[in-house]
């Protein structure tokens, strides 16, 4: 079997790596491929790093081939896929930066922290690009609320979003919320963030020059979220309660400090590259920074601030502790940068440097803990085209009988969970902070003005899951068209689209934004 970016294999859908296999997260074939490429067996740390980077969550090995077919360029598009978020030109020297991401598995296990860190992660993706976050949207799906577990998940997710979004001061201006039995105990939790940045301040995440220093800033590293990426890519099974340690724990107050500290630092032109630590923590962020800059990177895990003693290199490299950032800084600016974070009460650890050999080397003091080629963690992640198996179109649901009492029937429709007002949910989200919200949640697309210009942004998330279940292709088309219509109703010109496909689940969500 061929390896490399062009190595596309068609595999049957049944072949899935298990989290219980001897090399968790990797199939036997993938493991063999790694041994072949390295010319040796990977050690434990390396195996953990590879499993995380080759997971669907980080490597998109099952969906990359499909995602490549989507249109990603346009007259306004400044940054398409490949960075932390997309960027679109809205004139006046300003760019809109946006991204949408799911946090389904963590939310299914620990709904409050799962949803909260979903918000935290997406907000970091936006300010990593140098943009100030101006709006959040959430697209949510749950099973019927008359089942206890679903009610627990729903209450936890909504409270988690409110907790994190309200504290960091970014208005939650829109989203969707629907119920269907297919989401029972398996909710969909998607968070979208929109930010604004001056064109010349857009920050990218490619490594700078050889010899540049790289720092981990923000929170200290703990044991939370280890295996988060592989967990998020596996099937949820009966062991979900045992998976709780794979869920990260968020601290929105720290995130707010990190946000302000990073944006202030970018103003001072002290940073060559910035990358947030999300799924697969230090492993993915360092590998991606090195890959984008076509460099190598050396990391001394012994220099990473920890929450508790005794963390192994494996744990440090795979921890998904939240509110951390990776910075690449020229050696002569390191002292300034460290002073800056000290002033904000945040950790800043010099943990390594950029090298020119395209290797990622992990040391614990003098001891070498892992050494892997950067491409093996990034471009060489295998790509699969899963065999499509068309499902028979479900029969149309039977028409309800003619109501005998139209008044009562109307009340039943209006009070149905999928029709009734969502005010009790969105009123727990601060949607007016920043004083730019022109059209609030509950009225189709939200509108947020851009201060200092005569422009406003309309934004929405839309999808009819039943259409997608009946006919995925047309369902997705309808989702895009619905979002565009919602924007058109605000007099907006559709500008860009963030797509989020949730495979294996009868749904595709389209986030749309217009200026």
């Amino acid at each position: 079997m061929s390896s490399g970016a062009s190595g596309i294999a068609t595999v049957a859908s049944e072949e899935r790596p298990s989290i219980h296999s001897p090399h968790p997260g990797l199939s036997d074939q993938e493991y063999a491929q790694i041994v072949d490429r390295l010319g040796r067996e990977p050690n434990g740390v390396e195996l953990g790093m590879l499993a995380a980077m080759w997971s669907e969550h980080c490597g998109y090995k099952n969906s990359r081939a499909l995602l490549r077919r989507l249109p990603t360029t346009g007259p306004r598009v400044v940054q398409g896929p490949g960075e932390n978020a997309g960027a679109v030109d809205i004139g006046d020297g300003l760019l809109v930066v946006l991204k949408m991401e799911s946090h389904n598995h963590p939310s299914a296990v620990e709904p409050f922290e799962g949803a909260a860190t979903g918000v935290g992660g997406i907000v970091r993706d936006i300010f990593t690009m140098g943009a100030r976050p101006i709006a959040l949207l959430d697209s949510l799906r749950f099973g019927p609320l008359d089942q206890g577990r679903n009610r627990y998940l729903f209450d936890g997710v909504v409270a988690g979003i409110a907790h994190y979004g309200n504290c960091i001061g970014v208005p939650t201006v829109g989203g969707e919320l629907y119920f269907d039995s297919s989401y029972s105990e398996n909710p969909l939790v998607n968070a979208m963030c929109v930010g604004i940045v001056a064109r010349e301040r857009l920050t990218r995440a490619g490594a700078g020059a050889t010899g540049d220093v790289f720092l981990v800033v923000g929170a200290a590293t703990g044991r939370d979220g280890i295996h988060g990426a592989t967990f998020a890519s596996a099937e949820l099974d009966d062991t979900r309660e045992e998976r709780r340690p794979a869920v990260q724990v968020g601290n929105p107050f720290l995130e707010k400090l990190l946000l302000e500290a990073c944006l202030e630092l970018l103003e001072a032109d002290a940073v060559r590259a910035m990358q947030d630590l999300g799924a697969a923590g230090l492993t993915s962020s360092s590998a991606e920074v090195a890959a984008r800059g076509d460099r190598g990177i050396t990391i001394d895990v012994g220099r990473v601030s920890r929450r508790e003693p005794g963390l192994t290199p494996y744990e440090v490299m795979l921890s998904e502790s939240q509110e951390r950032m990776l910075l690449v800084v020229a050696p002569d600016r390191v002292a300034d940068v460290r002073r800056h974070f000290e002033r904000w009460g945040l950790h800043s650890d010099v943990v390594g440097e950029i090298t020119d050999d395209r290797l990622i080397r992990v040391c614990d003091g003098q001891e070498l803990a892992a050494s892997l080629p950067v491409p093996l963690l990034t471009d060489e992640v295998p790509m699969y085209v899963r065999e499509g198996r068309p499902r028979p179109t479900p029969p149309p649901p039977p028409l309800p009988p003619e109501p005998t009492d139209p008044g009562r029937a109307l009340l039943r429709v209006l009070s149905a969970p999928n029709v009734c007002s969502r005010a009790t949910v969105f009123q727990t989200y601060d949607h007016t902070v920043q004083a730019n919200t022109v059209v609030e949640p509950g009225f189709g697309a939200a509108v947020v003005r851009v201060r200092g210009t005569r422009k406003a942004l309309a934004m929405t998330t839309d999808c009819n899951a039943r259409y997608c279940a009946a006919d995925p292709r047309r369902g997705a088309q309808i989702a895009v068209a619905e979002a565009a219509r919602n924007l058109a109703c605000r007099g907006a010109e559709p500008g860009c689209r963030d797509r989020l496909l949730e495979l294996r689940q009868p749904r595709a969500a389209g986030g749309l934004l217009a200026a």
Partner: protein
Amino acid sequence: MVSFLIAGRVCGRRRAAAAPSSRTFSGACLRFAVVVFPGSNCERETHYVLTDVFGQDAAIVSHEETDLAGYDCIVLPGGFAHGDHLRAGAIARFAPVIRAVEHFARTDRLVWGICNGFQVLTEAGLLPGAMLPNVGGSFVCDWVHCRVESARTPFTVGIEPDRVLRLPIAHGEGRFYAPPDEVARLERRGQIVLRYCNAYGEPTPEANPNGAVANVAGLCNEGGNVFALMPHPERASESELGSQDGRMFFEALLRSYAVA
């Protein structure tokens, strides 16, 4: 006793000392300090409304600042100072700037708390009572009506009696509480400046979004120079944001200086 003469006195001194700004409103130009604690998140829009909407001088001032001598009015903005850990305002009250704010308030100059700023001021003892978690237990972001109970503070001077304002709220710990005898005293002294009410101006329990005692939405100290409210006037000061009723507090403040 609420005495808004204070404002005039301050104003006279300030106007003699400060050069008038090029951008003026109602003939007055004040110098505001918007205090930012770690975790504050409304300082930018508060600053924007003061400068861009009302043409005033305003500076964003760190929680570590100890010298507020150059200002006419200190604003403690909304947000989650120190993450609202322990209780809203419980940690912020120990910030160095609070000593300076206390001194500032003691010398009869103006202190204005909005939302989290209200919570900080009660924690710091600059306003009576305490803030509890909302009845119902969750954060509430909504539009409410408030009735102006007292036009005798510099923040409400000139607003017609019983005027009903439509303002946005966004808080999780906004349930004002004081013991019954304290509430009676506040009523007697006219310190309750703003009350939640329905659209007709009636302070009913249904119109109370957080369970605050006596529907208190806004409060001043005995001198009338320290004022705080849970609603966000800075989010309701421009036509496209759904209400301009928040302007009234800013306008009253500037008016109180202009007449002096």
